[in-house]
């Protein structure tokens, strides 16, 4: 359910900091623009089918652009676009049926899940060629539990506090001064006194506020506890989860009351229309800004520090990309060649030409000159830990049907938080073995 708009914007590669380390390496952009494929019988027109969940008009444009580039590189791409939510809901039967050779998917737990079930194809040999174009963090995010690679990362976006510079200026709040939770609440008070909704939140879909939970939890209890909680090594009944909820509760007076009535985009509209000051959102928040002047007014700052020990050292930065289905084995050479192409700057440049705010995983993409995009890159570079997103970091049968409604209950009746968390713990324990 997470959104996957490419709007993010742009650029620079080095991201995923954890990675930082040596990674980079040179590599000329477009080293395989010749369509060098993994030994594909390089007959003209290497036919590969691609299943895509990019059904939004903007995302569809990106698909069209890179498919055109792939065609130029000698591929015959059969693109099969399915409505985003439908794609997600049917992924299970899709992958077990007759899936396309290559399909859009997400890094992290969700990738590992299908890899471990044998529903995707190992592309470690592709990584031996493309590895030099990605930092280590991306390779880790593309690696299954068995140590092999199953995923080609393409784009990513971070979660942060989105705001309009003009709104902050008018209220006399300096975003750079907001570091601690107290700073943040003080800013909220100022906005409230000016008649604005300080924080716009929409959770009608049941997934949007997961990003807010992630940030509160990582700030309150640290990245380690967060991943332990997601992985089931810590319990939702833990007192630390209560602390996270308590901290979130302190923001309730400053967030709109009808959170369950609004989708993320409705809440984002409030920021765009200057009725709300901030939204804690993925950078795809920008996708509703159709006017260039509004877009230039958009900025972000990292979610504030809550617990000194954790500073602002962690962020959700989900990575989107592609996997090879199990069915690709019948067309392995071509599918791997296309995976290599998707990893290339040819792919990224094609997408960039229609989605100027997209942020690419490939290290060879030049730095963006877009300020909002640069902020995102900085944010991720300055974060020590990168999480994906709640519904990408924990069991999918737990995240969507169980955590989603639980967070909605919390938004409705925050005082029930102990009961809600206790029930989450019991439901986790009741899950069948994965």
């Amino acid at each position, binding site marked *: 359910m997470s959104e996957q708009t490419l709007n993010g914007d742009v650029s620079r590669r080095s991201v995923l900091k954890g990675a930082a380390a040596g990674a980079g390496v040179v590599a000329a952009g477009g080293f395989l623009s010749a369509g060098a494929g993994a030994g594909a019988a390089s007959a003209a027109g290497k036919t590969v089918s691609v299943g895509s969940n990019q059904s939004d008009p903007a995302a569809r444009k990106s698909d069209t652009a890179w498919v055109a580039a792939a065609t130029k590189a000698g591929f015959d791409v059969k693109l099969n676009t399915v409505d985003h939510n439908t794609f997600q809901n049917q992924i299970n039967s899709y992958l077990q049926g007759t899936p396309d050779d290559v399909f859009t998917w997400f890094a992290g737990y969700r990738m590992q899940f299908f890899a471990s079930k044998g*529903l995707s194809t190992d592309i470690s040999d592709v990584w031996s060629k493309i590895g030099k174009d990605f930092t280590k963090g991306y390779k880790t995010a593309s690696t299954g539990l068995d140590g092999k690679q199953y995923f080609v990362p393409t784009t990513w976006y971070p979660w942060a506090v989105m705001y309009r510079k003009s709104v902050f200026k008018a209220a006399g709040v300096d975003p750079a001064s907001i570091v601690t939770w107290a700073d943040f609440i003080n800013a909220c008070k100022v906005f409230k006194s000016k008649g604005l909704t300080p924080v716009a939140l929409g959770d*009608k879909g049941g997934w949007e506020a997961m990003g807010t939970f992630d940030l509160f939890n990582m700030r309150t209890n640290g990245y380690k506890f967060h991943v332990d909680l997601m992985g089931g090594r810590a319990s939702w009944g833990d007192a630390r989860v209560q602390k996270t909820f308590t901290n979130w509760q302190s923001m309730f007076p400053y967030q709109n009351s009808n959170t369950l009535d609004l989708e993320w985009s409705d809440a984002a509209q409030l920021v765009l229309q200057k009725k709300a000051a901030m939204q804690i959102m993925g950078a795809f928040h920008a996708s509703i800004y159709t006017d260039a002047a509004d877009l230039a007014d958009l900025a972000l700052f990292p979610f504030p520090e809550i617990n000194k020990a954790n500073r602002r050292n962690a962020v959700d930065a989900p990575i989107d990309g592609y996997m090879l289905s199990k069915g690709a084995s019948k067309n392995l050479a071509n599918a791997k060649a296309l995976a290599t192409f998707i990893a290339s700057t040819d792919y990224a440049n094609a997408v960039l030409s229609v989605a100027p705010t997209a942020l690419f995983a490939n290290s060879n993409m030049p730095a963006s000159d877009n300020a909002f995009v640069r902020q995102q890159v900085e944010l991720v570079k300055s974060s020590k830990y990168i999480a994906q997103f709640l519904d990408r970091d924990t069991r999918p049968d737990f995240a969507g*049907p169980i955590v989603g409604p639980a967070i909605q209950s919390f938004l409705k009746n925050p005082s029930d938080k102990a009961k809600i968390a206790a029930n989450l713990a019991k439901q986790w324990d009741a*899950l069948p073995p994965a």
Partner: protein
Amino acid sequence: MSSTGTELTAAGAKAPRRRRRSNFTKKDRTVLFGLVGIPTILHVLFVWIPAILTVLLSFTFWNGIGGIKEIHWAGFQNYTQIFSLYEAFPKALRNNALWLGFFALIPTPLGILLAYFIDKNLKGSKFYQTAFYLPMVLSLAVTGIVWDYIFRTNGLVNSLMGDTSVESATSWFGDPNKNIWVVLGIASWRHIGYVMLLYLAGMKAVDPSLHEAAGIDGASDWYTFRKVVFPSLRPVNVIIIVVTVIDSLRAFDLVFIINRGRNGLELLGVLVYENIFGESSRIGWGAALATMLFLMSIIPIMVYLYQTFKAEE
């Protein structure tokens, strides 16, 4: 006497045919098999076998990936946990019951009432008939989208009420105490036309001489309807009851479009969907919900049909 003669002749002519009926020819049997056998096979294959498998799956753990060896026996655990842990379940049960009660009390009688008036051939009755039936032509999914625009925070209703601000506008779909009633209203808007049409069709088939006879005996229109027409419409009444029960229990599309059936709009059908579809489905859990839903729909209907037809004999 002469009449006996005629009867005899007629009987004589029919006799061989009657004998053949009890002793089917090959052709008869082929036709019968084609008309009854094939649908039965298809029905068993695509309805009963999956239904039975669903019941079996409800006693297992399975994430929907891999074959039979991935399916693990769970005993009654799915059921006990649904009752003890699943917060959405009691809400869904309550909403389905509410839906059924509301449908039985409001739109169904209203539909019958409309049919009664339209059947009187009022001026413009064709227009009313079309107007009331129109919602039924739209799929519930379309209905959901249209009404979403009417009731959303900045939608038509709030605009007319003059408050579309996020902070203070009435939250028609977001407030769990209100949204189910809004949804029931929308569903009724659709159901009324359906009941009306079914009923109208039935009433057109009522022998007009019954009306006349009642009229001559001095019964009023309404009295005739209650004492003469209504009882003679027993088959239509059965259909309407069955349709109402089934529609209430399988309600899904509308709430799914509005907010995926959460936050006050939980329904059993949605819970089944939520648990079975998706990346790592809990097939056993969803199957247990589906089994309960199945029993809830089939038991009352079977009891009702059995009693009705028994009484008829």
